[in-house]
């Protein structure tokens, strides 16, 4: 493939890579798995890139490919080994920014989100990224009404996990 295309791809992905990191954060729970999924999403983005026409924003397009890879395409690779808990390593919450109770609450919240199923995680992810129901429904292929219904159920489920 031509160099120019490759260059513009790498440049854009480098700039927006946090989107991919965030998908990985929700769908994996250790550093190796995170990097493995990051790599697979990168491969899928690059393969799909020649067909990216720019009628949507690069970042919007990334959400779709990223989530599709995490939910549907990705197969855990065998070389993956379980190491330390990821949130504890790379996302060490800075003590000065939070008070103790909030820090504790957030830790529990992230743990609760990790207990959700793949589709529920996708809804939470898009919600956290400030996507509206129109975009959520278009990304997942469900109606807006159903996206709302599902989101309410996810909120309830999170509450139940947090306060059993």
């Amino acid at each position, binding site marked *: 493939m031509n160099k120019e295309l490759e260059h513009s791809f790498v440049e854009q992905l480098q700039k927006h890579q946090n989107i991919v990191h965030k998908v990985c954060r929700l769908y994996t729970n250790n550093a190796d798995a995170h990097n493995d999924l990051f790599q697979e999403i*990168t491969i899928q983005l690059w393969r799909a890139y020649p067909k990216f026409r720019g009628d949507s924003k690069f970042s919007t397009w990334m959400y779709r490919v990223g989530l599709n890879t995490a939910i549907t395409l*990705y197969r855990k690779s065998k070389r993956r080994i379980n190491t330390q808990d990821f949130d504890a390593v790379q996302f060490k919450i800075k003590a000065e920014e939070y008070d103790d109770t909030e820090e504790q609450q957030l830790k529990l919240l992230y743990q609760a989100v990790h207990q959700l199923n793949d589709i529920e995680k996708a809804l939470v992810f898009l919600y956290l990224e400030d996507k509206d129901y129109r975009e959520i429904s278009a990304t997942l292929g469900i109606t807006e009404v159903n996206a709302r219904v599902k989101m309410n159920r996810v909120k309830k489920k999170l509450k139940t996990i947090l306060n059993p």
Partner: protein
Amino acid sequence: MDELELLKKDWKRSDNQYKSFSDSDIYKMSHKKSSTIVKTLFYISVAELVFWVLINFLPYVLSEKMKAQLEEMSHSWIYVSLNIISYLVIILFVYLLWRAHKAISVTDNAKKLMESILKTRKIIKYYVLYNLSIALISIPISLYFSINEHPEISEQLSNATTEKLVIMSLVAIGITIAFLGLVWLFYKLIYGILIRRLNRNYQELKKLEI
């Protein structure tokens, strides 16, 4: 405060806490080997096609007697037309699989993507079912003909009572069905394990529609 709002606040703050990959990291990663369910399904489909084609071909290659027999049969129009039909079926399946694989697009919405992948699996499922049905018909028939060609056995059989013949035929058919059933179960098990997660997620999206 709503739990998710609290999470969102932290989520936004976490932006600068991710490891930042450089351009060259990303370049290297994008050229690595991918490992996806689509790829695995594709390899399995190809293996299925090759497997059943080989099953049909091997007797011809391995046994001289069989080769001579088949050559003799090649003059019969039934044999020739059956052969043509079976090749046409293989070509049809290859075409359907190729089309289904081409339709898989990572930029579709999640539900559509899952449907496209499940469709390729369905095609190969029909292909396996087709081959099993052919086997179900041809195993008893070829058994019948090979017994007929064997003078000792056929003589023994001609002395047997009708009751005995019926029982023997039923046993032969029963064994064939049991054997093919096992092949089918094995096949279902492999695919079941392979696409368990995909199926679960698809059902989760589908459930919302009801």
